[in-house]
């Protein structure tokens, strides 16, 4: 069965390591923070200018001057630092963030990602996504494997305007965990109960399937 949003976040969280500085995008990526493995510490970077983002505030703690990149009110953990957006993106662009998790509309076999613009619909803007995908070495894209009407989001070539070129190496969808190498998606794990055939059917880009595809473990 396809993963729930929570399971997706949980699988992504398994890619974290102790001591990782992590930037989580809006949506499913934000949920990843709830599934940091026991005994492991990670620190959340928010690109508006906060390293060490904490939980949402209580009513008493609520402060308009304390928000994250999603414009949500947040708190800071002990040991946090707060800085300008130029410093924040120096950190991101300079490759100091260990892991970036973000959503996408499309990903292709060359590691291209499209996530910010659907021509014809309104252009909202890329925010920090272009900097994040250009700056991070270790990026995980999370999304549904196919759109609601069944169209694959894992393509031979992205059709939408790109957020970044050749920068994506790992994709976790509701059906599978894949790596992108040598111009193909490499199937690494499948969601529990999901058949390899379903993944093949819903992957438009070239998919390399090993003899054995283990199920994700939770």
């Amino acid at each position, binding site marked *: 069965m396809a993963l729930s949003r929570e399971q997706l976040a949980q699988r992504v969280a398994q890619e974290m390591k102790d001591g990782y500085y992590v930037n989580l995008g809006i949506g499913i990526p934000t949920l990843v923070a709830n599934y940091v493995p026991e005994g492991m510490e990670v620190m959340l970077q928010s690109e508006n200018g906060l390293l060490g983002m904490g939980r949402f505030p209580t009513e008493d703690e609520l402060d*308009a001057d304390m928000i994250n990149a999603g414009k949500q009110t947040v708190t800071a953990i002990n040991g946090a630092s707060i800085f300008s957006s130029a410093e924040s993106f120096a950190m991101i662009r300079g490759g100091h963030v260990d892991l970036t998790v973000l959503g996408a509309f499309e990903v292709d076999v060359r590691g291209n990602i499209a996530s910010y613009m659907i021509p014809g619909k309104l252009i909202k803007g890329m925010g920090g996504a272009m900097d994040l995908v250009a700056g991070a070495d270790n990026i995980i894209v999370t999304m549904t494997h196919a759109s609601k009407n069944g169209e694959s989001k894992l393509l031979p070539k992205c059709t939408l305007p790109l957020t970044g070129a050749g920068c994506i190496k790992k994709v976790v969808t509701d059906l599978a965990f894949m790596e992108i190498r040598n111009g193909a998606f490499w199937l690494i794990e499948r969601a529990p109960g999901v058949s390899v055939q379903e993944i093949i059917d819903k992957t438009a880009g070239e998919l390399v399937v090993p003899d054995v595809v283990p199920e994700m473990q939770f």
Partner: protein
Amino acid sequence: MSGFNKLVGSYQEAMAGLEDGMTVIAGGFGLCGIPENLISEIKNKGTTDLTFVSNNCGVDGFGLGVLLEDKQIKKMVSSYVGENKLFEEQLLAGELEVELTPQGTLAEKMRAGGAGIPAFYTATGYGTPVGEGKEVKEFNGRKYIMEEAITGDFAIVKAWKADTFGNLVYRHTAQNFNPMAATAGKITVVEVEEIVEPGELDPAHIHTPGIYVDRLILGTFEKRIEQRTITTVESQA
């Protein structure tokens, strides 16, 4: 002798000299750390054909959004403009121009403008619509695009505390784009919540040295919250 006292007496005085067609760089991220009253003053003043450089364009009825009501903005240079119906309408009607700029590139373009660096290279946007028409250069086997600096006729900035010399301290994440904006205006105008005497701020804690600040005014702020997210006692347990 005025010396280094940057205080002005009114918001009119704070924005004096702003003219139609000018470029204004504004601090703030979303509705956090925005120069609310300086924006209101621009609305009152009625200046038009303005180009604004700001990460966002406020929301309907607050922040830079209020300047859309009388079509005072000709062009926005922003990374994200999706919180605003009027913006959408004017954009689709061709009444408003928008130059989408990645957030980190935007921050760095402002910093570069203030720092006398006319252009820099970044991998951000290479191979995307942002990179189209821009010079590409390869360094260590990777391709980068050249991005040029931004400066403004005015910069409008919101800080927390200032001394009368214009040394600024920002509060929490209301810092955001304000420090870079402050460096990049020909005339930099700052509104703050508290003004103290020189010597009361620790020299090591100043985020923006007074050399960047031309005019300083004490304001009161609504500080509207865009996404009110709360931990309840139950959810904490």
